[in-house]
């Protein structure tokens, strides 16, 4: 009896092992398909040309992006429907994930050889590993490249080639409740001292000067991001280059003072109670209910604020982290980009789809819905009136969101570090040392 079982299980093992051995490469697809797909990674022309000849065959493009949560059912669907009207043989199937999980899903799909035809990548150094691994198509020869704003184009480049199409820009500033400012007779502050005075006046009126939702890790970075353009990059535009060269460090930079001032705002009682237990959503609730007067956020928060409190008049001004007489620089950067998979079976249709997005009427439709700033020249989207107040400050000077130029891995250390500092579990010095270490470890 025993022997029989032993032989039986051995036999099964052998069968299973031989079954395993065959699909050893990651894809478990039909062998023919995987052979074909191995080649296009290095741009195999013949197979693709053969396919474009049958262009009128119905084509389905898979489009994967993180911006669906707000816009997927409305704006993106409308854009896709319009594209289908003009290109009846092409259907775009849109899928989405929230920003937090998007990167993990797309990385897994790319590694598993299951790339969507068209997908989003985060601008700047974040997409470089994907370009380096050969997953993205070189789009440098596309007609829309010339229309990109310089600041937007920079974060789409990898080794001098345009690898993705920036579609919008965002700014970080102070969103404020104009009614509260009017009631208290307050003016928009233009220096750090004025900002502190305004906050004090609001606090004395029994309102939280600022809403802050540190429980959402990404929120923790917004105040330093709004400070850094004025505090660092206006006078030291080559700070990041020096960091890469090992000639500068976070510890010996204005970061120490920035963090000290950030904590000072808390110590003066200018934030809502328990920011560490408050998340982004709750921070916008505080603004909508009038329990807080200011919120350092991106213009994207306006959509949710208007949703929650349609009757409040919102305004926006740049965080004045400056001494009198100094220029305030704004934190402004490309938010989303769209790129094409290097291994797509429908490169022509995918390129046509991107060109369609770049068309002024489509871009303006998207930007108006998204309430975002353009990444292309000569566009006039209907901006949110509050966001539009950021246009003149933007002319003064701006710098991208810091992580877009950082090596991967530094931002995560910073986000956890700021939470730890606010929780009293870590000093500012320790946090900056960890960021320096992460930079050294991840910069290549």
């Amino acid at each position, binding site marked *: 009896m025993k022997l029989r079982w032993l032989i039986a299980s051995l036999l*099964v093992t052998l*069968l*299973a092992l031989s079954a395993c051995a065959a699909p050893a490469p990651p894809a478990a697809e039909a062998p023919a398909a995987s052979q074909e797909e191995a080649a296009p990674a290095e741009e195999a022309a013949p197979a693709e040309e053969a396919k474009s000849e049958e262009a009128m065959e119905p084509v389905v493009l898979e489009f994967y992006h993180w911006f669906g949560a707000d816009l997927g059912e409305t704006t993106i669907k409308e854009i896709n429907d319009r594209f289908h009207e003009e290109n009846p043989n092409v259907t775009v199937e849109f899928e989405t994930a929230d920003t937090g999980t998007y990167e993990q899903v797309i*990385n897994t799909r790319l590694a598993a050889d299951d790339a969507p035809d068209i997908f989003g990548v985060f601008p700047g150094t974040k997409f470089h590993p994907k370009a*380096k*691994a050969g997953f993205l198509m070189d789009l440098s020869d596309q007609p829309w490249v010339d229309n990109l704003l310089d600041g937007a184009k920079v974060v789409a480049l990898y080794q001098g080639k345009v690898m993705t199409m920036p579609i919008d820009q965002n700014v970080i500033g102070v969103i404020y409740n104009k009614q509260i400012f009017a009631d208290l007779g307050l003016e928009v502050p233009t220096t750090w001292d004025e900002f502190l005075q305004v906050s004090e006046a609001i606090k004395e009126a029994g309102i939280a000067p600022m809403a802050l939702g540190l*429980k959402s890790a990404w929120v923790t970075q917004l105040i330093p991001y709004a400070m850094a353009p004025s505090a660092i990059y206006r006078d030291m535009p080559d700070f990041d280059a020096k960091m890469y060269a090992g000639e500068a460090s976070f510890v010996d930079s204005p970061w120490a003072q920035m963090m000290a001032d950030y904590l000072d705002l808390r110590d003066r009682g200018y934030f809502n109670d328990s920011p*560490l237990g408050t998340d982004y959503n709750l921070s916008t609730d505080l603004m909508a209910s009038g329990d807080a007067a200011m919120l350092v956020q991106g213009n994207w928060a306006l959509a949710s604020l208007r949703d929650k409190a349609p009757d409040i008049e919102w305004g926006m001004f740049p965080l004045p982290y400056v001494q009198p007489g100094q220029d305030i620089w704004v934190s402004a950067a490309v938010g989303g980009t769209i790129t094409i998979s290097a291994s797509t079976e429908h490169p022509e249709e995918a390129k046509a789809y991107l060109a369609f997005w770049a068309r002024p009427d489509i871009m303006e439709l998207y930007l108006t819905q998204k309430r975002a700033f353009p990444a292309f020249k000569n566009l006039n989207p209907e901006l949110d009136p509050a966001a539009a107040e950021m246009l003149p400050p933007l002319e003064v000077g701006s710098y991208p969101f810091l992580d877009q130029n950082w090596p991967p891995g530094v931002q995560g250390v910073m986000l*956890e570090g700021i939470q730890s500092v606010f929780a009293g*579990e870590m000093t500012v010095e320790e946090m900056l040392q960890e960021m320096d270490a992460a930079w050294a470890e991840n910069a290549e």
Partner: protein
Amino acid sequence: MGLRNATWTNNTRLRTLITDALFLLPAFVVFAVFFAYPVISSFYFSLTKWDGINPELKFIGLANFQKLMGDRHFWTALRNTFRYAILVTVIQNVLGLILALAVTSKVYRGFRVLFLVPPLLSSIAIGSIWSYMYAPNGAVNSLLTLAGLEGLAQDWLGNPRLALYSLVVANIWKWTGMAMIIYLAGIQAIPKTIHEAASIDGVDVWQRFRHVTFPLIAPAFTINVVLSMIGSLKVFDIIYIMTQGGPGRATESITTYIFSRAFEANKFGYGTAIAVVMFAIILALSLIQLHFLTRREVRA
């Protein structure tokens, strides 16, 4: 025909053998493809430097494990995980047993179904619900204020000294019903005759529990302790939904640390190395627990 008798039996033997093998095959293939293969390949990944995207892996031997020893965030995560697992295991089993004893009585029988609802809900739903309740102006603090206990109101998830325990409570709330049902099955399996004999001997309620019920539900105790220990050592969903390991690293568990290394910092090799260490720890602990707990099991 008589001569062929031997071959005939051989043939049947072979045939039964093949039949047996074929019946085993589907389960084994699923097991091999979806469990054995990934597990074995992750041992290999733990010896590499890999960003999770690039098709090229760089073999670096045991360097990941070496780095792990000096990584203080790993030790923080390990300490948090053990604190979490021990609290959950102890409290969940005590509560589960008490509930099981309670719902054995006819009066509270109807509550069985009620207590089984939380284990059926998804962790994402439970994490969201508890996040709302723990918010600074959420249900927990509101109830405390209503009861005139404003002084006890806390920033349950934002205070690094409380956050881990707040998560423990949510975890226990979810899984105690499961422990209860296993204990209940154990209690109901005890033959009535033993209880009757005990009554004749004149035992009181405590003695009956101490000397009859508790020893006889030892198998349920074993499985509950091992399951809750393994489950809470591997906890991910509730933490990820409620705090993402924060504030700072106050609620970072081994699994959230693996996730942040592998998927957020793109260090898959390092992430898998941590996973391999966790696998070894859980395996060792489970074997030790099983060894000691099964020894004290008795039969009715």
